[in-house]
């Protein structure tokens, strides 16, 4: 029983990471109708930036606060320089760019920081696990950070004028321009925001799985499974999907398939969702009269 509870809590902790990356994927998907395969590698690169700062003597939270805006700028620049000229290009062109970005970030990271696994510090202390050993300090801290990030993003999109304009620009760029929304700026902001969320997820997961240029490959796959499970058109669904995948991964790994086949669960979920319910659990098929 204790073991189950422990696995469940670990599942929620890693689920939060998947949920964040899933949200980043959905944000880009809604604006471009493509899945940004490079989302994970961008997050990995951001984490290296944080590590470099920390190794240079910058305190953890300062490094955190510097890395997020740098990642934001990186995302916005990628949209402006690479994606904007492709706005009207065929799908394959964008897919090509995403794959190119993935390979580029991966090899540049390997070239600069080498492929050796590096430990990444946790800001929450190494001490003993809390609450009778059920949850480590890092799990608790990173889950809290993840929840704060997800809630702020939700509130931003739900309650602010800028958030509404960003959603509008993603759904209907033509009408958005006609009411005065600068659509290209909104898309760049969206990319920046997605990259920032990814960066935070990267910094939260790195102390657990160690940092190397391939760190996010697995995470991205789980996140993608989560996004599909919840519904790639529904940000809240994707977040819930991310948590579900985290829990399934941990429980399944501990009791059903063993650690070797953990990643296969993610692929299994992707295949099942796509065959049984392509819109995902919460993905709505938008009703429209014409």
């Amino acid at each position, binding site marked *: 029983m204790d073991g189950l509870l422990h696995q469940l809590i670990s599942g929620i902790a890693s689920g939060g990471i998947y949920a964040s990356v899933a949200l980043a994927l959905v944000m880009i998907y809604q604006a471009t109708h493509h899945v940004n395969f490079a989302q994970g590698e961008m997050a990995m690169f951001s984490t290296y930036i944080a590590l470099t700062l920390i190794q240079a003597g910058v305190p953890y939270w300062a490094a955190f606060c510097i890395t997020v805006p740098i990642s934001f700028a990186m995302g916005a620049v990628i949209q402006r320089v690479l994606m904007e000229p492709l706005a009207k290009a065929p799908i394959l062109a964008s897919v090509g760019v995403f794959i190119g970005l993935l390979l580029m970030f991966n090899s540049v990271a390997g070239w600069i920081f080498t492929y050796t696994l590096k430990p990444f510090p946790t800001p929450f202390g190494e001490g003993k696990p809390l609450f009778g050993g059920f949850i480590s300090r890092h799990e608790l801290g990173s889950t809290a950070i993840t929840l704060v990030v997800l809630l702020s993003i939700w509130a931003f999109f739900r309650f602010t004028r800028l958030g509404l304009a960003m959603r509008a620009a993603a*759904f209907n760029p033509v009408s958005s321009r006609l*009411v005065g929304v*600068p*659509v290209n700026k909104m898309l760049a902001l969206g990319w920046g925001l997605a990259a920032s969320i990814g960066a935070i997820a990267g910094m939260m997961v790195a102390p657990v799985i160690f940092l190397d240029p391939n760190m996010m490959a697995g995470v991205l796959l789980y996140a993608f499974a989560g996004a599909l499970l919840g519904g790639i058109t529904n940000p809240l669904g994707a977040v819930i999907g991310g948590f579900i995948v985290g829990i399934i991964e941990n429980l399944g790994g501990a009791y059903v398939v063993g650690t070797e086949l953990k990643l296969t669960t993610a692929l299994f979920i992707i295949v099942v969702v796509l065959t049984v319910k392509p819109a995902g659990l919460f993905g709505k098929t938008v009703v429209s*009269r014409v």
Partner: protein
Amino acid sequence: MLLEVKALHGAYGESKVLHGLDFVVEEGGVTALLGANGAGKTTTLRAISGMIKVEGEITFAGKRIDGMATEAIAKLGIAHVPDGRGTFMELTVEENLRLGSYTRNDRAGIAADLAKMFELFPKLKERYHQQAGTLSGGEQQMLAIARALLLRPRLLLLDEPSFGLAPLIVREIFATLDEIVKATKVSILVVEQNASLALAIADRAYLLETGRFVMSGAAEDIRKDETLRRSYLGY
């Protein structure tokens, strides 16, 4: 003169649609742009809003706007209800209306204008929290007009407000438009295939045929001229 267009040429890629249009929209009142399918009516509105590349001069309130970005033109006070109504289907009616006032910062003025829209279109108040995609065609047209008016435009471009709607709803919408013109200072440039409807509320009309004007004048004169109506407008 609110809007002055000189030697306007427009094309989609290789195919030229507008062949040198000259026209004006005066401050206040309704100007109608009439013509059959494919005459270039929608393209003319798109040209004004900077949605296509154009040659020629477009001056709005003394300022050259040709070549400007669509969102910048909207900010100057040109609201455009595009063909197909441009509803944000995935968003709620409330969010659609909030987007209408995106360029404005006067909270009190926006709230007052929203109250006015509810008076003009009571249906929108009933459906305020509903997803806009579930609205009927007529309700979406009302939403589109309200969204455009919330920009507090000096010029309102309407692309075929009667399209796909039942005659009764069309009459209701045109009656409301007439009310709006009389109650506010907004000028309207309306594109219509249904000439009799448009001429009933218009002050001035231009008749477009394959990218060229074949006739223009006071709406009343055109309404009275039976030969003209029969040969060009088909009613």
